[in-house]
């Protein structure tokens, strides 16, 4: 209990004094995960919509695989991305290993299945509702997808926030592909792992509390921003 209390105190101190190192790693955490979130959403949301409206033979298999990929251990993703980006690997010439970009890539791979699976279910439900109308109106496939994505945007936001949560707390993959290099690829979660490994529990907890607070702040901000529409409930 002493550790938890001193962790809270230390967290307050670090935040209150705007500790430079804390700011650096917190900002990097946000940048990496937010970038990954944007890219993953750009991939996952249209994919989810496509899966919902298009009928093709292996649809059920693809959806099942997508759902299963949600359970992919991040550290495994990290290893695979590492092998691909390593200098001895196929994409080594890009020199992306141990950079924040590699971390973004790994996180994108991890959160795309999550966002796509959740989004797909909501979009599918809405498609059931709109099906007859949109078919009758003869809208194009692209228009169908855009209409569904827009009208289910609140559910999609939830899916995206789920992805954000998964990403901001992730440590296994980004440890491997980022290397936890001080001032270059260290983020909140890898710093927590480092301090825990050194036995500095209080500091690790402090960083943990900052991480939680950050996640809450981001969620609040997103909810506030998305109400700039005056529409109300839908």
């Amino acid at each position, binding site marked *: 209990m002493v550790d938890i209390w001193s962790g809270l105190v230390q967290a307050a101190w670090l935040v209150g004094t705007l500790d430079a190192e804390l700011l650096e790693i917190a900002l990097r955490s946000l940048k990496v995960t937010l*970038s990954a979130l944007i890219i993953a959403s750009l991939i996952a949301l249209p994919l989810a919509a496509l899966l919902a409206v298009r009928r093709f033979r292996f649809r059920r298999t693809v959806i099942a695989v997508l759902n299963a990929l949600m359970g992919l251990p991040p550290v495994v993703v990290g290893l695979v991305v590492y092998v691909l980006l390593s200098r001895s690997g196929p994409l080594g010439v890009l*020199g992306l290993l*141990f950079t924040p970009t590699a971390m973004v890539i790994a996180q994108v791979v991890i959160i795309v299945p999550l966002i796509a699976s959740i989004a797909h279910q909501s979009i599918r439900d809405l498609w059931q509702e709109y099906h007859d109308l949109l078919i009758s109106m003869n809208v194009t496939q692209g228009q169908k997808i855009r209409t569904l994505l827009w009208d289910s945007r609140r559910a999609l936001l939830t899916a995206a926030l789920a992805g954000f949560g998964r990403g901001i707390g992730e440590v296994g993959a980004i440890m491997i592909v980022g290397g936890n290099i001080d001032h270059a690829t260290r983020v909140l979660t890898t710093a927590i792992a480092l301090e825990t490994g050194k036995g500095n529990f209080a500091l690790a907890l402090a960083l943990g509390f900052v991480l939680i607070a950050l996640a809450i702040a981001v969620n609040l901000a997103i909810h506030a921003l998305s109400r700039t529409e005056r529409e109300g409930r839908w």
Partner: protein
Amino acid sequence: MKHLILSLALIACSGAALAAETMKMAVTTSFHNSGLADVLLPRIAADLDLEVQLLVVGTGQAIRLGEAGDVDAILVHSRGAEETFVAAGNGTHRREIMYNDFVFIGPESDPADIAGAPSATEALQRIAAAEAPFVSRGDDSGTHKKELSLWDDAGQDPATLHDWYKPVGAGMGAALNTAAGMGAYIMSDRASWLNFGNKGDLALLFSGDAVLFNQYAYLPVNPEKHGHVKHDLAMKLENWLVSDTAKGLIDGYTIDGETLFVFNAKAAD
């Protein structure tokens, strides 16, 4: 909703590129935990205008990174593995820089009574006889390999030891955490121990035997095998590491008044 997307995009795009010379070096967790890097790196940056990016991993992974050419040099403490590394053409050569020592840590009550043992080998034999819980790194690191060789000297085969011998497959800090949590014996490098923040009931019980000395060596990755490695920067760093400046910093580095490392680099290659 459009405001939201725009804001997110803006945050993600903020970022500046730094233009200092950089190189990547894989070092072991035991080296990093000592805190010596925090003293050396700023001085290296000042003297050589060189940013050394450290990847803190286990010895096994450090060697893997060197083999793959993902780093420009490695600093490890496992002579056998190092010589294999050079022989296989992955590194150009090995340069001894400094050594520290390993110590035996255990519960203050010392149930196996190793504090009075005359040698490291004897201490381990006492632990085995008492079947006192012992935490091993179990991760193929330099520390782990050293520990295995000591068990060998003591006439024990760790592969046959069960129950009380616990390989955790983790770094030094994590292993110390586990030892603290279960009141077990453990072999640690002195620096990690001194810097460890969760000592709990543990205490330093045995040290000083010459066999416990731990040599660190610097190995630049072979540019013939990986053309992109920054060999010139690696050599620049090596020259600095064997210089008098480095000697002063390394010999002068203390934790709680205790020196940790002894500089032993030779002038010639």
